[in-house]
Every structure is written in C-alpha cells, then in structure tokens.
C-alpha cells in the first residue's frame, strides 16, 4: 500500500468517514429528485462563499466608526484582489437571499413541508429571516453615508415598538446617537451572532433532511396521510430510490458550479457596489437607499398612510415570520401537487408579482422629491414673454419641479403639470399654490404676489392647444376635478 493510502486508511479508521459519513452521503433519495431540488444546496454553497470571503475581508476591515470607511476604500482600491473578494461577498449575499427565497418557493409549491417534514420548513423559515438580517447588517458595514443613514432608519423603525422601542434602538445604536459604538455592534451581530445562528440552523436543517429523506416530486394521486406516509415512502424508495452520492448529487454540484462562476464573473466584470460618500452623519446630502432586495419594503413604507405605518413596520415582518412559520401547522396532510392546490399557486403568483412591481416602484422612487432637476429648457417653455419665462424659472427654484413633471422634466411625486392649463383656471391655480392641499405644501409665505402671477402665467400656457397659449381659460367652462 502506498504511503498516501496508509495515511488515508488511518484517517478513515479514526474519523469513521467510511463507516459513518459515507452512508449518510449515500442515503437513498427518490429517483425523480431532479433539477427542482438544486436550490437548497446552492444556498448552502453561497453561504460557504460568504463565510470564506467574509473571513478574508475581516482580516483587513476595521470595524470602527473612524476607520471602517477608509479600510473599505483600501480593500476596494489598493489591496491585492480586494476588489474581487468584496465583489464576491456582495454578489454572494445577493445569491444567498435569492436562492433561499427560490428554494422556499419551490418547497412551498411542492408542499414538501407536509408530514413529516414540518420542522424542515420551520427551521428554513428561521434561516430565511437570519439571512435577511445578515443582508441588512452587511449593508451597514459598508459604512458609507448610506450605511450610516440605514442605521438611523433601522433605529427609527425599532423605536416604533410599543413601550420598549426606545430601548431597542438605543441598544442598536449603542447609545444616544449613531457613532463609535454603533458600527462595532453591527459588526458583532454580522460576524458572530447571525452566522452562529446560520451554522446551527443549517446543521439542524441538514439533519432533518437525513432523518426524513428528500421529498418526492408531488403526484396528484399521492396525497399525504400521516398514518401511512412513512411506510409508503420507504416502500417506494426501496423500489426506485438511488443513492444521493453521486447519482443525485451531480446536479447539485453542476448548478452550484454555475452559480459560483456567475458570482465570480459578476465580481470580476461588474465589481462590488461603489462606496458612497464618507459616513459623516452631519452630511445632509445623503440619499439613503437599501440594497435591491429591500426596495419593495422601501416602497411599501413610503406609500402607507401615516396612521397605519407603525403597524406595518412592526407587523409585517412579525406577521410574515409567524405566517410562514406556521404554514405546516395549517395543513400537514393531503394533496401536494400544485394542480390540486390552486390557492398555493395563487399565493406564489400574487407574492411574486407584488415583489416585482414594488421593487420597480421602489427603484424609481416616484414619491421622492427629485433634488437634481434641471431648469426647463426653452423648447419646453415655448414663450418669448419674459414674465412667462421667469415663471418657468421660478417653477424650478421654488421646488415645484422637484415633485411635478412638465413635459418630461421634473419629479413624479405630484400630479403632472404638462396640461395643467386645461384643468385649472387662474383662480384655482392661485388657490392651489397658496394653500397647498393634499400632500402639497402651501407656498403663500414664500412667494411674492408678482412671483405667484408669473408662475401662474407660465402654468396657464401648459395646455393641449398651443394656439390658446397665453389666453386665459374662459371662466364659463366648468372647472374639471382636481387631482
């Protein structure tokens, strides 16, 4: 026997690899466990990327309020391969969140959470929330202006918890304000507490898979009956099962290879997200925005009426977590096939649509004033009258254009003004601007009478009938409803 063989035999004998581990790897799985089943292992693989790149980053990253930003700048710009490692950690996080959600959707659609795998699902739900916590705390560790403001937002949200909210946010901030202690706390949570929970959760999750076996593809004629399920499952496995390693595992490995290659590719060709401005909490020119997987929530928060807000901020994550957690308790028997579970399919479709729509909405941020609007160009103003021209200038200077759009220029928070001259007459416009209205501030105190009339003059030129441009709308025409 070669030397290497001897060494391996020694290791194998003492560790029990062939005796204990191999049988686990070779446990029999249903033959039909095909490409549907690769997302769980890929999530685990993404986690491994996160651990390895995370450890690497932590060797250079300085978790202190004064130096974190500089250390990240160093990692990104100067450190050998730092750009790559940071990029991998970022795209790995994205992959982990996405794959965890896809994996869960697949399990839900196939009702694999039913007897006897209820606990597999529950441990998975806990893991999902821990992963989201990792994503969020990780974003703060970037510790640029965005990161700092995200802590502030997190603290404000936590403060909405009844009675103890103030304490929770002080705990998060490590004091009264965002400062030296804050980042260290998030660092500890991100690198010790949450990863510890993930390791434990993944251990449990994997153990449960070994204990109950991988579920079969759902068949319409095989509803789950806890009385007989295990026996039938074993019986079918005996007849048609295949060992996981390597007959079923190869697909997992192929898929994970592709995933890792994509992550590496993104890290090389796209690179890590750029760092924002330095983390000075006194800098008001920050425009806080979460990472993309939280945009939908960002959109929800800005659309809510204030009275509901606290309930949603606190209720949605908690109800969401509880709702998901108890899914197997609501029904752990009966049909698994999606064709027999229209409600489950509908839930997934509605959820996915809502996510996509809200994400797009969150990205566009139509509710936010657009501070960068340019002055209206002459071809939009379309007038030689200095009064009207000045009105157009005022429209931007007074901030109207931050929220209102004129022929493609300006923000989207308020109603568009491109044809406002058709909708409102002079008197109505004056009232509107002076008094404000639903979600529009009153400008009475910040406009002189002359400015007001110039602005109104300009707005009255915004009609569908360019010929009538400067004419005032005849007063006998009934005013149309305001938006």
């Amino acid at each position: 026997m070669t030397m290497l063989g001897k060494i391996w035999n020694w290791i194998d004998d003492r560790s029990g690899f062939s005796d204990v581990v191999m049988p686990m790897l070779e446990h029999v799985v249903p033959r039909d466990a095909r490409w549907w089943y690769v997302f769980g292992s890929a999530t685990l693989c993404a986690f491994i990327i996160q651990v390895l790149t995370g450890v690497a980053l932590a060797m250079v990253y300085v978790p202190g309020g004064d130096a974190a930003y500089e250390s990240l700048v160093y990692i990104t710009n100067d450190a050998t391969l730092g750009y790559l490692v940071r990029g991998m950690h970022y795209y790995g996080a994205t992959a982990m969140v996405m794959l965890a959600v896809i994996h869960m959707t697949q399990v839900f659609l196939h009702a694999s959470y039913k007897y006897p795998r209820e606990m597999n699902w529950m441990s998975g739900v806990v893991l999902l929330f821990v992963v989201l916590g990792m994503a969020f705390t990780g974003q703060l560790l970037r510790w640029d202006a965005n990161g700092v403001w995200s802590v502030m937002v997190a603290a404000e949200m936590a403060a909405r918890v009844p009675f103890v909210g103030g304490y929770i946010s002080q705990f998060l901030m490590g004091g009264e304000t965002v400062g030296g202690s804050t980042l260290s706390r998030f660092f500890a949570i991100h690198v010790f507490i949450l990863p510890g929970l993930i390791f434990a959760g993944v251990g449990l999750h994997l153990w449960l898979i070994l204990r109950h076996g991988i579920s079969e593809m759902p068949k319409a004629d095989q509803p789950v009956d806890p009385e007989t399920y295990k026996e039938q499952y074993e019986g079918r496995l005996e007849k048609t099962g295949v060992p996981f390693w390597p007959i079923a595992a190869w697909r997992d490995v192929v898929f994970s290879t592709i995933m890792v290659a994509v992550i590496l590719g993104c890290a090389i060709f796209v690179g890590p997200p750029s760092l924002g401005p330095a983390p000075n909490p006194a800098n008001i020119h920050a425009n806080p925005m979460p990472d993309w997987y939280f945009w939908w929530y960002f959109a929800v928060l800005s659309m809510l009426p204030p009275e509901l807000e606290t309930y949603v901020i606190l209720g949605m994550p908690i109800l969401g977590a509880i709702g998901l957690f108890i899914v197997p308790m609501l029904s752990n028997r009966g049909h698994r096939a999606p064709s027999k579970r229209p409600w489950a399919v509908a839930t997934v479709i509605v959820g996915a649509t809502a996510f996509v729509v809200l994400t797009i909405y969150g990205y566009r941020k139509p509710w936010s004033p657009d501070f960068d609007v340019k002055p209206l160009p002459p071809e939009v103003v379309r007038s030689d009258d200095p009064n009207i021209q000045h009105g157009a200038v005022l429209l931007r200077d007074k901030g109207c254009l931050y929220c209102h759009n004129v022929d493609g220029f300006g923000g989207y928070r308020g109603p568009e003004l491109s044809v406002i001259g058709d909708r409102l007459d002079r008197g109505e416009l004056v009232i509107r601007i002076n008094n404000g209205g639903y979600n529009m501030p009153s400008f009475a105190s910040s406009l002189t009478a002359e400015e007001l009339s110039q602005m109104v003059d300009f707005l009255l030129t915004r009609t569908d009938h360019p010929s009538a441009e400067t004419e005032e709308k005849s007063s006998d025409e009934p005013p149309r409803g305001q938006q």
Partner: protein
Amino acid sequence: MSDSPETRSPSSDEDRRGFLTKLCLGLSALIGAMITLPGVGFVLAPVFARPKQAWRKLGKLDEYEVGKTVSVEFKDTIDQPWAGVTALSGAWLRRVSENEFIAFSINCRHLGCPVNWVEDASLFMCPCHGGVYYEDGEVAAGPPPEPLARYTVRVKDGFVEIETSSVPLTTNDQV
C-alpha cells in the same frame, strides 16, 4: 466505583439519580449565569446610561446672517475617540433675529433620513419618502407624523452654541 449495585436498593439509586440530575442542571444554570450576566450587562449598559448633554460652539455670532438657514456640524456627546467622523451631528441653524436662533434636527421624523433645506421654497424636504416641512418645522406634506425636532441654541460670549441631544426617535416620548 465504591458502591456496587447490590449494596444499594433501587429506590435509593433513583433518589441519587434524581439528586444528581438536579445538581447538574442547577450548576449548569449557575455556570450559564456566571458566564453571560457580565456580558449582558456590558452590552446593555449604554441603553440605561443617562443621556449626556453638552454645549458645543458652532461659530461666531457675526458669521450668521439674519433670516438665513444654514447647515452646521458639531461633535455629539460621544467621547469615544474611535467614532471619528461618525461622532458628528448636523443641524439646520437659522438666525431669526439679532439674538435669536433656531436649530432643527436634520433627522426626518418619519424614519430619520436627512432633510434638505430648499432655500427658495422655504421648505425642508426629505429625500427618502417625500416628507416636506415648512420653515418652522411643521409638516407640510408626506408621511412624517410630527414636526422636525429642535436643538437648544444659545449665544454666549459672542459665540453661537448648541446643546447636543440624542437622535430624535419618533416615539421617544412613549418610553
């Protein structure tokens, strides 16, 4: 192994087991408490610390124009040297008259984003979810539930001074 099974009755064996189980559980709890309590206290201490406040000089009185609203920076009460630039807080400061100043917190009362002062429109606007405030800090539009928070400002020996305070959490007053 001093006692052999024959010399002891099954019931005393059970008693012994019961006692040892309790002993182990009790001691484990004690170990757990001894290990965790100091750490928990250490981590929670900032939550229960009394809020510290301090006066910070902003600048000479004559640097500020009456009627103007400007952004100012000052060091908050955190005295940890490793806070670096994150020990700074900001405020919007307006000289209302000869000797009167108002300072608004830059934190939007909705979820804490930094509000911008738009001079020409005399409005504070929030970039996050479209909160707008009038020049006196009252809510003009959007989701914020409360007016902008204010800092205390005073003029002392020809300097404008601001009193630091904690981040204005919307529900501070509920706790």
